[in-house]
Each structure stands twice: as C-alpha cells, then as structure tokens.
C-alpha cells in the first residue's frame, strides 16, 4: 500500500533562511507527487506537482526515486510562507478517478 511520511510535524526558521520540508513515500508503481499548502483558516491549495517541474512562490521539489523522496525547498523563506504543508501521492485508477494519500503535514513557521 502507498504511504507518505513527513518526519517533521513542526519546522521553524528565520526569514531569509533556507527551508527544506521532507517527504518520503512508499509506492510500488510510478508515483505522482504533489505538495499542498494550507494557510491559516484557508483551504488546501495545490502548491506544486512533480510532473510540471515548476517553481511556485520560490518553492521547488525534486522527485528522487532512488531515495523515494520529494522534499520541498526554498532558498530564502518569507514570513508569508508560514503555513501547513502536506505532501501527497496520487494513485490513479483507469478512468475512474484517483486517490490522494497525504503525509501527516509539516507546520512551517517563518520568524521575522
């Protein structure tokens, strides 16, 4: 069965410091991975997905199949990055939808 692990429940950094939120996964197939973010009192929002290989709000994430990881990184954290971050793995069934398996989430706090 697929599993997503985010080892850090809480992460606190200072503004301008680099940040890395860890995500490891376990999946027998070819994984599709996402990072979702939840700002205070707001909905879960897609931050980025590995297939698009894009940078959103300065965040990047690289899929490392050898280490089964999809860590989220940002070189210079901003206070507005403070939020809950969820790593998620998507399992797809033919034409009938997909299921997201979420990690436990990491609460990032960026201090001034």
């Amino acid at each position, binding site marked *: 069965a697929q599993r997503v692990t985010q080892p850090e429940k809480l992460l606190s950094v200072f503004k301008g410091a680099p940040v890395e939120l860890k995500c490891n996964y376990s999946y027998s197939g070819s994984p599709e991975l996402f990072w979702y973010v939840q700002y205070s009192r707001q909905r879960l929002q897609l931050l980025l997905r590995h297939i698009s290989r894009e940078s959103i709000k300065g965040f990047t994430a690289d899929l490392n199949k050898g280490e089964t990881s999809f860590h989220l990184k940002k070189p210079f954290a901003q206070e507005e990055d403070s939020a809950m971050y969820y790593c998620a793995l998507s399992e797809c069934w033919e034409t009938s939808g997909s299921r*997201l398996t979420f990690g436990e989430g990491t609460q990032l706090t960026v201090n001034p």
Partner: protein
Amino acid sequence: EPEVTQTPSHQVTQMGQEVILRCVPISNHLYFYWYRQILGQKVEFLVSFYNNEISEKSEIFDDQFSVERPDGSNFTLKIRSTKLEDSAMYFCASSTVSESDQPQHFGDGTRLSIL
C-alpha cells in the same frame, strides 16, 4: 478562479443523528472526492465518485456513509447514524480528469462535531 464550495462550514449534531454535508464542485469537473481529517491526524481519503457512481472507497467508508449527486451541481456526503469518532473536518474535492497528475481542487471543509 472557480472554487469548490462546501456547506455548512460547521455542523454540530447529536450522536445517532443523520447528517448531510454538501459540496458544489467546480462546474466542468467530472471526478468528485471526499476526504476527512480528524483533529491532529492526517487527511484521509474516503470515497471517489464518477459518472454517478462510487469508483473507489476506503475502509473508513462503511455502510454508515453514502454519497449522492442529486442534481447537476451538488455532491453530498451522508452519515446515517453519527458516532463520536465521526467528528472531523470533511473536505470535498474535484478534478477534471482521472489522470493521477491532475490536481484535485479542495473546498474549505466542513467541521463536523458530534456531541
């Protein structure tokens, strides 16, 4: 930008009562989902729905749960006889296609409190 909307934002219900949580998915989306998050725990998949039927459900989604798309816009989750352990945040999501690289868009959630 179109959004998934959920009502109510907070529902308080007595144990044993039926509750219906409502969702309006994004209009051109075809795949609908319910997830729940018990306080302090991870977001868990409950069920997916496509073409007016359940396409996949988790072990959490037992006979007490049902989903329905009663009209062209609403997607509901019903819990027939609520238990204390049903207290959680329930999220509705929708997506355009089933490919696993396509993102699911989430609503704000309904906080369900069972007394």
